[in-house]
């Protein structure tokens, strides 16, 4: 049996083939259909509100169910402002951590320490550098497993009391800087941004690390061979080659930040304000939806559906811009 290598596929194998192909195809189609179904359902539910409020819905700033004035400009602003700031912080730390983990910096340090105490050939200890790196990587990825509500509680009870004195000092001393314009009472943009950046950190680190590890070793060797320092190699050779993967990580993280609900509902202050101040309360679309759905009447549901449609549109636009930028970046860098 085993030596008939060039055997034609049996009936069974052919059937498997057909079934497998069918399952794959229908899964892909179903996913697409599901997205379409969700969008259509939301749009239909949002129709009455769209007809009534039109463009004013996204350009006005009052949310008052009593007078039936609905405008979500502050929420749009808050969503983009918090996500964008969180993305800057999260990308910086996330990519830095990814470089640390992919360049073997930790491993070399430990190896040096082991060598200093002459233990580098010990069968157990010699594995330590790799093991520790693995542990740190897993710890960062573990951040993604923490439930959103735990982040929210941590923010309320630990983070906010911790940063409040510094924030209020900044506001008192440097109040003329637009970002420090108001004191931090409790919930506000900064606590939301800090927690959000921690939440998106694992996404950025994990994917960026994979991208950095996938850079062909030849390139690194070539850079060193031409006399580049390690610093120059990382910045000028490895990072540009890994751009595509890192950008993918950032886009994914941005999507997560835009849609994050629970932690933000607990930390952002839910006040319909547009302010550049990091310490002022704000509101986001997801938080608005979470807060208002349970008690919403039939007409309000339509308004909320309109708001979720706007959130969907924002996410879509961000993804398109991301994809476009990615293509550009790859075009300039020459691709790989």
């Amino acid at each position, binding site marked *: 049996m085993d030596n008939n290598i060039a055997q034609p596929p049996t009936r069974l194998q052919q059937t498997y083939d057909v079934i497998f192909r069918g399952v794959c195809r229908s899964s892909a189609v179903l996913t697409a259909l599901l997205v379409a179904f969700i969008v259509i359902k939301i749009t239909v539910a949002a129709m009455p509100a769209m007809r009534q409020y039109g463009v004013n819905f996204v350009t006005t700033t009052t949310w*008052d169910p*009593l007078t039936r004035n609905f405008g979500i400009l502050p929420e749009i602003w808050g969503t983009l402002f918090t996500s964008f700031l969180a993305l800057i912080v999260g990308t910086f730390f996330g990519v830095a951590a990814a470089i640390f983990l992919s360049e073997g910096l930790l491993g070399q340090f430990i190896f040096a320490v082991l060598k200093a105490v002459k233990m580098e050939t010990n069968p157990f200890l010699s594995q330590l550098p790799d093991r520790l790196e693995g542990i740190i990587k897993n710890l960062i990825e573990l951040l993604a497993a923490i439930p959103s509500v735990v982040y929210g509680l941590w923010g*309320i009870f630990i983070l906010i009391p911790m940063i409040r004195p510094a924030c209020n000092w900044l506001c008192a001393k440097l109040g003329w800087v637009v970002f420090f314009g108001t004191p931090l*009472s409790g919930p506000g943009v900064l606590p939301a941004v800090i927690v959000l950046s921690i939440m998106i950190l694992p996404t950025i680190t994990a994917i960026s690390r994979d991208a950095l590890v996938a850079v062909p070793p030849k390139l690194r060797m070539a850079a060193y061979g031409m006399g580049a320092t390690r610093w120059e190699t990382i910045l000028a050779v490895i990072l540009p080659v890994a751009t595509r993967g890192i950008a993918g990580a950032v886009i994914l993280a941005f999507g997560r930040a835009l849609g994050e609900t629970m932690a933000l509902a607990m930390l952002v202050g*839910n*006040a319909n304000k547009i302010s550049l101040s990091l310490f002022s309360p704000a509101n986001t679309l997801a938080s608005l939806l979470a807060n*208002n759905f*349970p008690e919403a*009447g039939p007409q309000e549901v339509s308004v909320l559906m309109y708001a979720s449609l706007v959130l969907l549109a924002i996410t879509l636009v961000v993804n398109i811009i991301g994809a476009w930028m990615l293509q550009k970046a790859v075009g300039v860098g020459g691709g790989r």
Partner: protein
Amino acid sequence: MKKISMAVVFLFMVASLLICGLNSELRAEDVVKLQGAGATFPAPLYYKWFKAYSAAHKGVQVDYQSVGSGSGIKSAIDKTVDFAASDAAMTKEDMAKIEGGVQLLPVTAGSIVLSYNLEGIKDLKLPRDVYPDIFLGKITKWNDAKIAAANPGVKLPDMPINVVERSDGSGTTFVFSKHLSAISKEFEEKVGFKTTVNWPVGTRSKGNEGVTASIKTTPGAIGYIEYGFAMSQKMPMATLQNKSGGFVAASTASGQATLSTIKLPEDLIVWDSDPVGKEDYPIVTFTWLICYKHYADAKKADIIRDLLNYCLTDGQKDAEALGYIPLPADVAKKVAASIGNIK
């Protein structure tokens, strides 16, 4: 030996099958399930009542889901529940949507308190011209002359007032904003009352627990929460000035004083947003169970009537321990008289 053990196992299996069969028979035919949904504010008390009632009555199972007053009313209209509950009662408009009519019954009541976070200050008096202005953003400092005048001898800090409100729609917001609208013309014009209002100042947190957490962690904070919740969390509560000028702290007695002055109308839907009595705590509200006037299943109607009777008599004894205000005897009597409308 082996044979005997096999026989034992077999017998055991037969017996358990029989028991299961008997059990499921009981389940299918004799258990009447009542499904309720609505307000979150009275939920702890309702859970206690319905659990006790279901335990005492074999064959009755009462379930309640605290999904919010708005959802409760919605499910009552959609007839997806056997009864509902709401803090904001029900509008005439909504009631008209239900064929056969509904009977609303106030079964318990609660106070809403202003809780604050000021280090070292245990007693804080807030006059009735002050706290609406705090929620309007007109009084912004704790050492404001108006607050200081009402609290002689209290060292008020030179600190901004951090107002905390509910971010989600809630009966608590409804009752509190209704009260503020009743005592301040300006509040009525600028903000008005509803389950969610457009507060001009402050930050907003979700649920009683969210507001409480914000107050606890924010120096200089003030916010409105339910009395029962404030009590269980040992939050400081401000003494509020009522219409006749007296400063009254929230308690079961001051809440009952308010309730006993309320005249119940025919439909049992009433708020006294500004009670006049000297001992009356100013922000007290009933919360309602919403029952249909006609049930297709006569058995269900019987059980609901019996359940309501239990809530209004023995059930009232559980109210105080959970931070609710037991209905004064004459109120409970009047409410009980309307149970007959459910058929």
